């Protein structure tokens, strides 16, 4: 066992993860550990490998794990299919949620909850109540339920729908891939309230992937990691987001380069 994977009680551990797609290396050795109740953020520019990290944790079939491991509660996820990971408590809020014409939101939510939390959780008045409360919190109208999944949704509606799913599926580990992009400040606050409700004061954890520090002001992550060129070049507390905001990614890059030198 490596030192990283030895942390007792870790919710998720990423250990020396190397990932490629179509023969190109994208992630070049990442280590990250999330304890229950913690919120981590990964920040980085476009093309730094953020979405790859999210997709690999969820099990996207196009990516090849060249080396390393991803563990949930001490067990490797890498041999598990995406739906098995979902049933074990991994959730990904997609940067680009897919439309499924003809599949009604209400039915889809019920089936997903039944699949992940069990048939009982998706039945009766309790589920209806839970659903209504979550929709109210996210300011989603009831008429939403009879629409088709992401079909003709605005950018903001798609992101709210991702968070609605997260709240209902009650994941152990929620990964939010650029959920804040394309949202106005009200949308960001709404999404942040959803994340806080799902993680704070629970045993769950969250990994927020973002370009910008705005959402982090409302979620207040415990740790921030900066991903550049497939490697985490800096990690720190919330203050790192402020420094990034002021000085830009070049600053981190320079600092990291000096450290290596």
């Amino acid at each position, binding site marked *: 066992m490596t030192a990283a994977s030895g942390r007792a009680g870790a919710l998720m551990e990423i250990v020396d993860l190397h990932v490629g797609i179509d023969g190109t290396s994208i992630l070049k050795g990442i280590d990250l550990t999330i304890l229950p109740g913690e919120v981590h953020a990964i920040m980085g520019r476009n093309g730094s490998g953020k979405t790859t990290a999210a997709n690999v944790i969820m099990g996207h079939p196009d990516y090849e794990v060249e080396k390393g491991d991803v563990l949930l509660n001490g067990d490797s996820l890498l041999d598990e299919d995406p739906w098995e990971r979902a049933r074990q408590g991994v959730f990904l809020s997609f940067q680009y949620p*897919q439309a499924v014409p*003809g599949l009604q939101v209400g039915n*889809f939510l019920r089936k997903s909850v039944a699949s992940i939390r069990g048939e009982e959780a998706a039945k009766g008045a309790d589920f209806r109540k839970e659903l209504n409360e979550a929709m109210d919190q996210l300011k989603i109208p009831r008429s939403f339920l009879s629409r088709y999944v992401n079909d003709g949704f605005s950018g903001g509606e798609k992101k709210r729908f991702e968070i609605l799913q997260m709240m209902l599926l009650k994941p152990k580990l929620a990964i939010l891939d650029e959920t804040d992009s394309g949202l106005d400040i009200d949308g960001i606050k709404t999404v942040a309230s959803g994340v806080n409700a799902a993680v704070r004061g629970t045993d769950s954890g969250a990994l927020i992937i973002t370009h910008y520090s705005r959402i982090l002001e409302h979620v207040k992550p415990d740790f921030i990691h900066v991903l550049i060129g497939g490697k985490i070049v800096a990690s720190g507390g919330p203050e790192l987001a402020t420094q990034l905001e002021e000085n830009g990614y070049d600053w981190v890059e320079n600092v990291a380069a000096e450290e290596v030198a």
Partner: protein
Amino acid sequence: MPDNQEAREAVGDYKAGWKDTENSTIRFDFGLSEEVVREISKLKEEPEWMTELRVKAYNHFVNRPMPKWGNTSALGEIDFDSICYYLRSSETTEKDWDDVPEEIRNTFDRLGIPEAEQKWLSGVTAQYESEAVYHSIREDLEKQGVIFLDMDSGLKEYPDLVKKWFCSVVPLTDNKFSALNTAVWSGGSFIYVPKGVHVEMPVQAYFRINAKNMGQFERTLIIADEGSSIHYVEGCTAPSYSTDSLHSAVVELIALPGAHIRYSTVQNWSSNVYNLVTKRGIAHENAKIEWVDGNIGSKLTMKYPAVILKGEGAHAEVISVAYSGDGQHQDAGAKIHHLASNTTSKILSKSISKNGGRGTYRGQVTVSPKAENCKLNVVCDALILDEESRSDTYPTMEVANPTARCEHEASVSKVSDDQLFYLMSRGHSEEEALAMIVNGFFEPFTRELPMEYAVELNQLMALEMEGSIG
């Protein structure tokens, strides 16, 4: 005529039918001839005009060449001499469920008919092989004066009504397979809805091919008198058999002025069945005819529900889905003829092909020179699930009046890996995810069905998606 000779040779040792003591079954040997046709009519104690109509139709069938379009190679494989043209598995038409022979009742129990009846049915004609064995009409229907019988009983009890309308929509010379049906038809439904009567609940019949080499030639005739309405639902499930089977039905609808007929079908044939069906309706002034038509399975389906918009202000709708899997070809679509002014029509066709299956949309919409201000809308969408499968579209519009407003849209799509991954990330296996996409694609059709049929169709498609991955 070589066909004729072959047919005669094949039935050289024709016997006048034999009786299976176990099931009280009368069945003919394989193959067809004029004698067989006459014998069928005689056994049914039909009026002479029907016998002669059958014989004329038989001769037309024999002389008419095979269609030269569609899947001609599959059509060429039909061996008419290996088909049994008449089989009666139960002596009489039963009125009461308890009187239906147990073996047959078990089959229908598995199809859930009695339970379904409580919820949805206004009456049941459950066709077991060639004849209705169970037939009931709810009292309220009888009180309203609605006639709902199997076609054989309809002919016996209402010969004048049948004579007036039979072959009035699909003439016996219409096509080779409708001629065959007219020659050897057996079973099917006969419905007459009196003026102004609205049948609130869907009326339902189950059909089932259940014997090896059993051709099924049911004949359905629905007449909705002025200002009346009815929704007829027909469902088919067929067990698998190793030899080819022919299903060639004819359905005729007559919607008199102001009447509304909706005819819904979900058919799931085993993959050796030829399903060659002629469905056509005539809509008079301000009448409305809707075909809701789902085709799953079969070796080859050729079916183009048609509406002739004969009266001013009439409306036609054909909503259809087709699913073709391995070795299957669904050649389906719609035909609508605008003969009168201010008539409107809508076609929505959706097809899915998988595992080398082939889906063909073949549609024809015509507007006659005298028909002013017609509106027509055609949408056909295809979903192809893998590289081996195929989809073709042959839309034809012949518009001879410049005031017509025509709209046509067509799309072909594939299931993307990202779509599947999205659904899988919500706890659904790859098969479940695929079924969700497929059922979503069919949803504009499914929502038109009575709920139990919608559920059945969704389950069927989920079953079809099993084992389709990897």
